[in-house]
């Protein structure tokens, strides 16, 4: 058999245009697919879409796939049911990590793929359940898309849609039109939205905005998105003589590298308590700076003092019931909630707080001696706890509840004499003491010790767990103090402690550290 006989048919070289939509369940990927198919059909093309909703419908990642071809009359194209890696013309990603996923799946290739992505993030459970900052690094997607895509059109299409009262399917559709990758005029796109029949005007507005942005990406960056008010200079006077005097000390006494953090820290502690407390903060910082200088901090950009400026402020402005009551009763808070919830002029807003005070909090707010007296009587505390410890729905909008919180916030006057304060102050002393001990011997390690304060956060059990982790991480310090890479190891331990709630990662990391000397 000769080859000539095997190839009697002449094959068409027509190739369908292929599009993949990567979205999460509930994002309207199906609507977008319907618009694209509807538009192509209205333009006389044959279009086919497929999807695998299945269990992915509940917020999981999912892909919609579309092929379209302008077939000669009476001919039925055979279209594929799923994207072939390396053979996709347009990828529309409705979230930035989904754009990353499309690249990982090989759907984005430099010879043909236009990647249209929204840069907004919807964090996956794996990211948000970490006790620390588990957010994936968007820069990795930016870099990879630069390598993988023929062309990238990326911006926050979620925000853009929201601004026009619409959803992301409309702004993605607008970007697709603006990208000019489909052989259809803008009117054809708009007609598809109209044919859909739901929320047409808002969709068209979002579509138009995204269209313009895709057509003219440079103008997009210049467009005055939401007018973000310029941030006030934290070192500039605020018009309060007492505070401004302290701020002058920050500007005058502290090295440049430390000033911004110290100004923020000062503001935090003064807001927490009063000017005298702010003064105590600065005095402490001055002592730490002196030690820093002695340890040669000038050559290291005063990293130690900078870390202290940050974490000392956090430690001094600890989270006690007085602070919570104070924050919840401020006038500014009501305005913020109104804004966040979107309360209209004629509507009335009430807030309910979910609090669960226990005897521990009550005792913590007592004068130190009285608090200790109670603590020495656990039986009594347990009996009292039965009356105290229960969930309380605090209706801050009613006078009775507001007054209750107001009174608690007023306990600020006795705060520095409370048991809680004495505990916090002692903790700060021990913590700074350890760092200062290490400072002359291992500067970088001392800086990391200060940074471990990040582990102490939250309330009740969370707070206790944080303190336990803090202690366990610092327990490694004696093993690390003479090591040049001691700071790196302590940082790793801290990061491990932020990986999971139970501290499993920390257990493993501590074991590794224990074997370092062997």
């Amino acid at each position, binding site marked *: 058999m000769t080859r000539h006989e095997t190839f009697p048919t002449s094959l068409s070289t*027509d190739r369908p245009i292929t599009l993949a939509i990567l979205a999460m369940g509930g994002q309207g990927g199906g609507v977008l697919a319907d618009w694209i198919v509807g538009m192509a059909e209205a333009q006389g093309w044959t279009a086919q879409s497929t999807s695998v909703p299945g269990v992915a419908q509940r917020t999981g990642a999912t892909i919609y796939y579309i092929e379209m071809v302008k077939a000669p009359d009476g001919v039925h194209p055979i279209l594929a049911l799923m994207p072939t890696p390396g053979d996709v013309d347009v990828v529309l990603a409705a979230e930035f990590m989904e754009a990353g*996923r499309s690249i990982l799946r090989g759907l984005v290739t430099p010879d043909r793929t236009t990647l249209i992505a929204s840069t907004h993030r919807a964090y996956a459970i794996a990211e*948000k359940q970490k006790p620390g900052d588990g957010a994936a690094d968007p820069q990795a997607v930016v870099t990879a898309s630069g390598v993988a895509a023929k062309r990238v059109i990326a911006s926050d299409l979620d925000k853009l849609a929201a601004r026009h009262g619409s959803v992301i399917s409309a702004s993605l559709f607008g970007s697709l039109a603006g990208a000019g990758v489909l052989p259809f005029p803008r009117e054809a796109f708009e007609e598809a939205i109209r044919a859909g029949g739901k929320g047409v005007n808002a969709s068209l507005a979002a579509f138009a905005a995204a269209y313009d942005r895709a057509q003219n990406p440079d103008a997009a960056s210049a467009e005055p998105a939401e007018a973000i008010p310029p941030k006030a200079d934290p070192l500039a006077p605020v018009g309060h003589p007492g505070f401004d005097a302290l701020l002058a000390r920050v500007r005058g006494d502290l090295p440049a590298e430390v000033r911004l953090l110290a100004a923020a820290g000062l503001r*935090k502690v003064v807001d927490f308590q009063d000017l005298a407390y702010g003064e105590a903060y600065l005095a402490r910082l001055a002592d730490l700076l002196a030690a820093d200088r002695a340890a040669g901090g000038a050559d290291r950009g005063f990293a130690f003092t900078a870390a202290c400026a940050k974490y000392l402020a956090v430690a001094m402005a600890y989270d006690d019931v007085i602070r919570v009551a104070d924050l919840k009763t401020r006038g500014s808070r009501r305005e913020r909630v109104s804004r966040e919830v979107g309360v209209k002029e004629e509507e009335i807003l009430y807030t309910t707080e*979910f609090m669960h005070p226990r005897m521990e909090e009550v005792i913590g707010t007592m004068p130190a001696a009285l608090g200790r007296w109670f603590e020495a009587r656990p039986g009594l505390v347990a009996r009292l706890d039965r009356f105290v410890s229960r969930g309380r729905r605090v209706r801050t909008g009613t*006078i009775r509840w507001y007054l209750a919180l107001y009174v608690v916030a007023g306990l600020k006057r006795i705060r520095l004499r409370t048991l809680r304060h004495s505990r916090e102050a002692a903790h700060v002393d021990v913590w700074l003491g350890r760092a200062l001990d290490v400072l002359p011997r291992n500067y970088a390690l001392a800086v990391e010790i200060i940074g471990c304060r990040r582990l102490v956060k939250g309330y009740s059990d969370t707070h206790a767990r944080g303190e336990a982790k803090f202690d366990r991480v610092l327990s490694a310090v004696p093993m690390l103090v003479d090591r040049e890479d001691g700071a790196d190891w302590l940082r790793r331990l801290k990061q491990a402690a932020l990986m999971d709630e139970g501290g499993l990662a920390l257990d493993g990391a501590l074991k590794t550290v224990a074997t370092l000397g062997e």
Partner: protein
Amino acid sequence: MAERSFAREVEDLKLGDGDVFRGEGILAITKALLQAGVSYVGGYQGAPISHLMDVLADAKDVLDELGVHFESSASEATAAATLSASVMYPIRGAVTFKSTVGTNVASDALANLASGGVTGGAMIIVGEDYGEGSSIMQERSHAFAMKSQIWLLDPRPNLETIVKMVEEGFELSEASNTPVMLEVRIRTCHVHGHFRTKDNKKPDFTLRQALESPKRDVNRIVLPPASYLHEKEKIEKRWPAAVQFIKDRKLNEHFGPAEGETGIIVQGGMFNNTMRALQILGLADVYGNTTVPVHVLNVTYPLIEDELATFCAGKKAVLMVEEGQPEFLEQALAHILRKRDIQTKLSGKDVLPMAGEYTTQVLLKGLKAFFADHERPRLGNEPPIPDPEPVLADPSVKALAQVVPPRPPGFCTGCPERPIFAAMKLVEKELGQHHIAADIGCHLFSILPPFDIGATTMGYGLGPASASAFNVEADKRPISIMGDGGFWHNGLNSSVGNAVYNKHDGVIMIVDNYYSAATGGQDILSSRAESKRRATNNSIVDAVKGVGVKWVRQIDHTYDVGKMRATLREALTTKEKGPKVIVASSECMLNKQRRVKPLLAKAAKEGKRLVRERFGVDEDVCTGDHACIRLSGCPSLSMKHLDDPLRDDPVASIDHTCVGCGNCGEVAEAAVLCPSFYRADVIVNPNGLDRLLARMRRAVISWLSARRDRRRIAFPA
């Protein structure tokens, strides 16, 4: 279908001669059933065939006009048994379910049906839930067809072809007195395409006629000696009749040249992707022209030996493209070739993978290997093949694998099942870990983060049944979970009844969300909606008591985490013997929103007073530990990075999609987490009293807060 309307899709069912249907594959099948003159349709919902059920449930007027009876069956077994109406009477009927899970449940009735045979056309439409997006074990329905000798249609994913196979499938069933199975894969069910419609057909013989002039024939009943005769009849009469029909009607198709050195035999469902792979290799085009002979098996059981022998004869080698395992078709073809002494080489699972979905990429690789072995010149002048490998090998792309997080499905925003598992998590902290037997349904998402609850899942309504062995003296009791869907599917008997009878001491949590939620929100026996055509509002608690459970607790608001925790604790520690059943009821939020949202919008527009609830987080109070997220996983509860140099960790944050279910507050309270959460109650269209109270309260509170603000230093933002 309760809260979602399929009115638009119902319109498509009314299309007549020469109209063009545009839509999903599964809806095309629905329309085809009406064109084929069915008298009754039954089934059990589940992806990917739910829409067939949903649309027919909404299509009362169309069905009434045609005299078609439709019902949502209690289970796939019920659906399959429904087909017995076609045993004695010339009545066409169809049932549908997800496969292989549904076919597993249905197989008792299917085997009986297939043994006795049918008079009227009987069709089983199975949604083959295989490959990406599937939610079940990866198996083939093919085995069921073979074991019971039910003919298996696997039409190529083209709406015209699918519709034709439905219509001719009924004829095949009648010509061979055998039920027919129509297999459609996930993507085929959801493919958007078009076909030219025909008028719907009223059944020639009605169910009423059958009822009023009943017939019986003891030879059609599966009892000896008839059952022995059935087996012989299957082989001697029905099989040859089917083969003849399939040949005569040319149900299998041929593409490309008649002759060739090599050829490809493909399951209908695999045709499109195979053609794409051939196209990429330069051996076919997008319009179905190919230079390689391709034989398409729109009927994969029985195989037509003559057709296959003719196709193979004279070719050096053929490739069998058959997805899934075992490779029944390849084995059968090998048998045919051996028996007929045809020396054509047979390739299949040697170049294609034995297991896993046949994507275009996989097929491309297999076809290349096949041609490389058997007809090398075909690969001679191939166009450049799309290849993502260079990009995937790039370090910056490889690095993405460590960055892009997995995104598994989870509970929806405001899901009433979330607080149940949050409570379980809290009880676990008190009483230690327990063996937890899971079931099928939305609640199975508990096995994923953040809850990580559930050890096994054995089937629908079998959660408690799967804890049966753990009925021994121990310091801990097993917990099992079952949804309302599973409960009515067979859990009442297989799980609860079994536990009562065997004096099981475990805890059974029945998650009652008023719907068969995971399959799309269809109504079931215990649904709370009033339905004209169905009897709803049947109490699960009554049913459970009816089969003899003594310890039953009903929780009518699952969001009460404290109560849920206390009840679970009691169930795990009570001295009382026998199964401890907790029925946790709250409406599926997805469906509740569908139901309530339009009503609320309307009420607000009309000026009626209502309270809109939403949750929020005070970001100054939140310390960024995310303990709340670990007890929730709600899509609307996420995190936010603050523009504050003193903060390292992002704080919890609730977005505008929050539906105010209450879980956040309840969990914060029950788990003593933190006081960051607040619920905002917004009174829309407040009345006079509201306004008066608000004015008074505002006056006092503003005065107090202003008093303190004056003493505070005002920092610029």
